[in-house]
């Protein structure tokens, strides 16, 4: 059976960079207009920082090399929290919702390559993580005197970049394991809340028993917190790069990416 085909003659493919920029533009527009996304991503970390510093800010906490004020201690931890909210939690909720409501399925019918969609969304996650981290660092400096030594600023920037990319990849991996839009937020809390508590984000690490710290050491949250803490610790000598923590973060990110690429789904799981 022969099927004649008249090819469309006027198709001009746009460059990959233009496609990604196009996608990022509309992803950012969507994000800025979504009240829930804005709150969980931008407001919650700031609210947490203010509350934690108000509650515990006057104490001191033992860290490597000496002690630091608790208000200073919480700033890097909550920078990490804000980063995870932006690069991980917000991404998981919105990508799951897009998949379950058929938005991704419809997007699949366009000629746009799959990776453009993923890259646009990942860039947005990394960008919002950078913005929220910068906001919290700024707030820490002006409100809580949590001024990192100037020489560690490159280390902070690199840690935020690696952390955001790793959690973005882990977010895409988690999306493949979530079966409905309603369960996205609870699953995120289930996974992340215990890690925040045992990783020194919500509770100073000197108060966490060793066996819990050993468990936390397996997971990426503590390594992000440790890397940021090292850069903020006034007793740190040198440039403040926590290479071993960054390596663990990168490994987690690579595993997440591998799972995401293998199992990414365009169609709703609930029909």
């Amino acid at each position: 059976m022969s099927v004649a085909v008249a090819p469309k003659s006027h198709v001009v493919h746009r460059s990959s960079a233009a496609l990604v920029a196009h996608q990022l533009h509309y992803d950012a527009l969507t994000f800025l207009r979504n009240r829930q996304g804005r709150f969980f991503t931008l407001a919650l970390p700031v609210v947490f920082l203010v509350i934690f510093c108000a509650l515990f800010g006057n104490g001191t906490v033992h860290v490597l090399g000496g002690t630091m004020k608790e208000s200073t201690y919480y700033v890097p931890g909550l920078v990490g929290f804000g980063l995870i909210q932006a690069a991980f939690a917000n991404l998981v909720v919105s990508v799951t919702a897009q998949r379950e409501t058929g938005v991704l399925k419809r997007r699949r019918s366009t000629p746009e390559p799959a990776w453009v969609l993923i890259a646009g969304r990942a860039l947005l996650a990394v960008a919002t993580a950078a913005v929220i981290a910068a906001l919290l660092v700024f707030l820490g400096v002006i409100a809580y005197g949590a001024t990192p030594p100037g020489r560690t600023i490159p280390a902070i920037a690199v840690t935020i970049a690696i952390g955001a990319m790793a959690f973005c990849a882990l977010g895409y991996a988690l999306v493949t394991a979530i079966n409905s839009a309603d369960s996205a937020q609870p699953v995120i809390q289930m996974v992340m809340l215990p890690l925040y508590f045992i990783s020194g984000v919500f509770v100073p690490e000197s108060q966490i028993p060793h066996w819990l710290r050993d468990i936390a050491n397996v997971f990426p949250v503590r390594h992000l917190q440790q890397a940021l803490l090292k850069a903020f610790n006034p007793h740190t000598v040198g440039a403040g790069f926590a290479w071993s923590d960054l390596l663990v973060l990168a490994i987690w990110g690579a595993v997440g990416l591998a799972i995401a690429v293998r199992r990414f789904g365009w169609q709703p799981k609930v029909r």
Partner: protein
Amino acid sequence: MQFAKSVRSQVTGAAPSVTGSTGKAGMPTSTDWPVAASDARAALPETVISVSALRMAFGDLEAVRGIDVEVHRGEVFAFLGPNGAGKTTTVEILEGYLKRTAGEVSVLGIDPEHANADWRERVGVVLQESAVEPDLTVTECLNLYGGCYGAPRPVDEIIELVGLTEKAHARGGSLSGGQRRRLDVALALVGDPELVFLDEPTTGFDPSARRAAWDMIAGLQALGKTIFLTTHYMDEAEHLADRICVLAGGEIVGEGTPQSLGGRESAPSEISFTLPSGVTQSELPAALPALMLENHDRVELRTDTPVDALSTLCAWAKDHGHDLADLEVHRPTLEDIYLRLTEGSG
């Protein structure tokens, strides 16, 4: 395929006026495609979709059980069938979403399982269910999708075509159900496709929204698009389709134009009237075909020659001074045919 044969014999025996109203080439209609092709090779238009012996199983459930379909350029082809007949499964195979169990499928010359970006440039898809982007306006959403294509149509033009001009700057989340469906269609059209799949485009519409959607779909055909429509509304298929394929239980149970489907055009006419008071059945002219009596005084008769039967009846009524005020001549509706075809399935 015993049924297909009976459909075909009725169709080929039909008057040539069958295809007149829809303006398609006068080709015989059949589910037995190779034969049809040799019968009317000269009139056969370009094939856009070709499916043969398609099967799809989900575990033990056989959703599609060996169907053959051929769709030609520029026509509106309707897949009609009850819920669960296998319509959406078939369409999603044609759209490249599902991997079939067996059979041959070619859409625009390509197997949709191996669809590439060039193929997607030429195909527009309206899914049965897909949410809008709630936080983007109609215009923004169309710009987003248009940017995915090499040669999109102007967004304003598409918005006007689907009748959303007044809502061009409304957020997706604020649209009514009918407006969202129109946005779905707009998103499928913005890339200027040759072939458009519409999976139950008007489900949940009120009657006026449905009419507006029909006008829009008719407009798409006027633009030269080929349209593959699924629906479970008989009136929709009758209004829009050049050809209808009835699917039930994963099998094709009938195929033809809205006028010829299931032998509709050659099916007997039904003449009915109420017996005038004081007249008994035996007083009616003997030349009339076999009569049936319903509710004591309602007479129904079926005939292949309605003019003969009517002139006999009218002459008799005039002679005896009866008005037969409620005389009716009834042709089988598409719904009658459809219910007969899908009887015992689903």
